């Protein structure tokens, strides 16, 4: 039984050895490369990693030192992590799409002497800031393409390093030495440093230890009954706690197979080929997926479209109940069965979900319709709540108790407490050891009695006993009239409309609520096509009056639903505008995990905010943008502003009567 065995191992290297023994001939890793799925068994991985570790050691990597891991999800990068851990060194993954500044910050802060990078692109990025990284000595790379003319004094190809290590291992004493190194590793040693994407200001290095990580992973592996027969697609940034937890840690604990896609743009196809049994996707991804499904169905023939929508209706009625094992009328079961043959089955199949046993979503609130859709077609999609400091999990929804507006009860061995100010506090097996080189912040983040402050405001739903998260605790503000104002709550309500990609709401210490909206280009674009609205650019489309009308309807609906809730009734949206450009991580407007950075946006778009509140009908704005290739430019626009009429709050209605 995996979790139990895992309990014995307190570091990942020991765990790897355990896997190589118990699942030696089972696939540990697959990678779509050169047209087919290259596969490595646990046994092979162990051999490779041992050789790699020795190779790195011969390059001079020592216990306690840090090594940066930069690039997309590729086996060699995961092995770099394993190899480093084997030597007791600490891997520091960095987002592959991080711009040079962020990169240099992390590398400098983590004081890395070594970096394991994917390819020329990343090397160039690092070299471009190398004067800020005096400590950096050696880089090992995976892709040798285009590097022929580089100075190889400080560059090695991973293959060479591994080969070098393999040769060295021919000498048994080296092997013995390595075993000693592995045994020397203690569970309390830091196993990895994950830099938080920094929803709040600059990012902090969260230090996790092997023992705790493994404990946490073991708990959830048991919770979801994951085994060595499961398969997961590693397509999320490997510097993100989610990937490190869900794929790396759980993979090692359960011994299941981790598959790496060929490239970002073939990920969907690869997902379909590999057919994972354990799947994680942030709500944003699921949303885009659903949008794409609906748009593609628009082009289907009349009959097929009718058929599709009819059975989706059926699923909406019975699907979730069937999934939750609740009673369903026979006719319902029958219809659902037919629908499953005609629609759900094939649909899940083309999306690559046929074999998914457990699917999770997290990171932000998910739209009820969206959530319901995927569950109704038989995808066991669940929500979890967590954060890097907790090594992801705090709460998760157990099978059969799924509600779109809660994040489930506390995970096994997790202890949750709600502070007076509504902030959620927790103690969990996987909780972090502290922030790297920043005890002050660490202390800040903990309560005296050792609970971690999540910074999120929430409460336990009395009917289900599940946790409900409204917003970042510090973001929950109040209007001047004292009405409660949780921006995220309002933003999410709007974002549940496929046409709306991103929303930023303002209202704290102000008279009323205003929002800035990003339209979703795919959805609105195809809407424009169908209603033959011509547009030349995103900016033009965003400014189009018809688009404004459409969005206005959505806002009105949201106001209605807010009005229904007596707490929120006063926080209805009075004015809104549609932004002329997409909020972009490269411009620092979003975090790498695509969360809006409200304060930053506030100053960046100050003129707009001013206009929103001074009642003017439109406002000029010009902003600097960063293009893919890193060049900078500015775009300026005149943005229209719409007024909304607000619904009377329930109480008021009482008076009127």
């Amino acid at each position, binding site marked *: 039984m995996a979790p139990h065995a895992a309990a014995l191992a307190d570091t990942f290297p020991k765990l790897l050895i355990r896997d190589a023994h118990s699942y030696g001939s089972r696939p540990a890793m697959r990678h779509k*490369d*050169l*047209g087919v799925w290259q596969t490595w068994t646990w046994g092979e991985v162990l051999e490779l990693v041992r050789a790699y570790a020795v190779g790195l050691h011969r390059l001079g990597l020592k216990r306690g030192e840090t090594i940066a891991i930069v690039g997309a999800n590729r086996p060699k990068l995961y092995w770099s992590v394993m190899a480093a851990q084997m030597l007791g060194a600490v891997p520091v993954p960095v987002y592959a799409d991080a711009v040079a500044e962020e990169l240099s910050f992390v590398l400098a802060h983590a004081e890395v002497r070594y970096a394991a990078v994917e390819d020329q692109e990343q090397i160039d990025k690092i070299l471009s800031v190398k004067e800020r990284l005096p400590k950096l000595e050696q880089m090992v790379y995976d892709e040798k*393409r*285009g590097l*022929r*003319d580089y100075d190889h004094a400080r560059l090695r190809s991973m293959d060479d390093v591994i080969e070098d290590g393999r040769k060295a291992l021919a000498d048994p004493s080296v092997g013995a030495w390595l075993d000693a190194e592995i045994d020397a590793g203690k569970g309390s040693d830091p196993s990895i440093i994950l830099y938080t994407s920094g929803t709040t200001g600059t990012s902090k290095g969260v230090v996790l230890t092997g023992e705790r990580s493994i404990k946490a992973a073991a708990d959830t592996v048991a919770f979801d009954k994951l085994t060595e027969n499961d398969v997961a697609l590693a397509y999320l940034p490997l510097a993100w706690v989610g990937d490190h937890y869900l794929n790396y840690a759980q993979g090692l604990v359960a011994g299941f197979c981790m598959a790496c896609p*060929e*490239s970002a*743009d*073939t990920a969907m*196809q690869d997902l379909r080929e590999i057919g994972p049994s354990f799947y994680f996707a942030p709500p944003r991804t699921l949303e885009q997926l659903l949008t794409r499904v609906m748009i593609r169905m628009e082009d289907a023939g009349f009959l097929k479209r009718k058929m599709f929508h009819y059975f989706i209706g059926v699923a909406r009625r019975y699907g979730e109940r069937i999934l939750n094992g609740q009673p369903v009328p026979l006719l319902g079961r029958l219809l659902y069965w037919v629908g499953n043959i005609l629609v759900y089955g094939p649909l899940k199949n083309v999306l690559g979900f046929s074999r998914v046993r457990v699917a999770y979503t997290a990171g932000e609130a998910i739209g009820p319709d969206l959530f319901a859709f995927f569950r109704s077609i038989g995808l066991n999609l669940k929500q979890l709540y967590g954060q890097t400091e907790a090594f992801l999990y705090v709460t998760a929804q157990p099978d059969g108790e799924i509600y779109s507006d809660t994040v489930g009860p506390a995970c096994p061995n997790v202890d949750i407490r709600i502070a007076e100010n509504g902030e959620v506090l927790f103690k969990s097996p996987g909780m972090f050891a502290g922030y790297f080189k920043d005890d002050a912040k660490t202390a800040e983040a903990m309560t005296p009695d050792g609970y971690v402050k999540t910074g999120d405001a929430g409460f336990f739903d009395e009917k289900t006993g599940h946790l409900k998260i409204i917003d970042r605790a510090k973001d929950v503000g109040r209007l001047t009239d004292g009405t409660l104002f949780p921006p995220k709550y309002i933003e999410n309500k709007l974002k549940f409309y496929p046409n709306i990609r991103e929303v930023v709401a303002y209202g704290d210490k102000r008279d009323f609520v205003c929002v800035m909206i990003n339209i979703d280009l795919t959805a609105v674009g195809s809407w424009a096509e169908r209603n033959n609205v011509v547009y030349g650019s995103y900016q033009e489309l965003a400014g189009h009056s018809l688009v404004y009308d459409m969005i206005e309807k959505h806002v009105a609906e949201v106001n209605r639903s807010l009005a229904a809730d007596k707490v929120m009734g006063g926080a209805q949206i009075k004015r809104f505008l549609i932004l002329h450009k997409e909020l972009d991580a490269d411009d620092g407007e979003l975090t790498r995990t695509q969360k809006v950075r409200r304060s930053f946006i506030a100053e960046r778009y100050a003129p707009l905010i001013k206009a929103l509140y001074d009642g003017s009908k439109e406002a000029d704005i010009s902003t600097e943008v960063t293009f893919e290739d890193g060049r900078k430019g500015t775009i300026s626009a005149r943005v229209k502003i719409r007024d909304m009429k607000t619904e009377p709050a329930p109480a008021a209605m009482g008076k009127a009567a």
Partner: protein
Amino acid sequence: MRAPGGPEVAVGDVLLSVENVSLSFGGVKAVSDVSFDIRKGEIRAIIGPNGAGKTSMLNIINGFYQPQQGRITFKGEARSKMRPHDAAHGGIARTFQNVALFRGMTALDNLMAGRTLKMHKNFFWQLLRFGPAMAEEVEHRHRIEEIIDFLKIQNIRRTPVAQLPYGLQKRLELGRALAMEPDLLLLDEPMAGMNLEEKEDMSRFVLDVNNHFGTTIALIEHDMGVVMDLSDRVVVLDHGIKIADGTPDEVKSNQSVIDAYLGVAH
């Protein structure tokens, strides 16, 4: 790897030399008394205004046309009568101004077709598609996949060529030429009809090919900027006559070249 039909030539030595070659169609002179050489490992550009006889020159080099006078020496062997497939055997590959892919086949098959020369398993094994034949098939598929990876065309493997956008077709054609592992690669206007971005990609590929595989390249191109960036040496033709030969800078400053181009401009 030693190409069939020809001794190995060291980098920097003359790989192919054209001496006093003339070619005419029914009295019309396409190329007259042109001489130049191509050195191993270099990128050699042939430029000139329209109708300067550039393409004819390539066609002579890889044997589509037989010159009436002059001789062509490739890897130190004078080639008198040479058909295109002889050229291919000798290690000369070629792409066309207007893409000449096999439109009825998938991208993958086009590339595999490029390996034809390197595959030798006999008819019997091919019939059974088994044992040696299959092994060979797999081995060459592997080589092809490296090229696919190199050209970043993973997502079009199974697409019939006819359905591919022009830019990709150009890239694929380059891939097919690479599949032949040529000693000399002739590119006929590799960037013709491309937008700026595609041109940049293609230039990068051409350089990478030259850098990565060390392939000698002779290319015709209209876009002066591109030519000057890419090539080590340039030969300029006008109305079938060689008017200049040298490094990009030398050529740029050459008066008769300037005239020729101005002449075209007006």
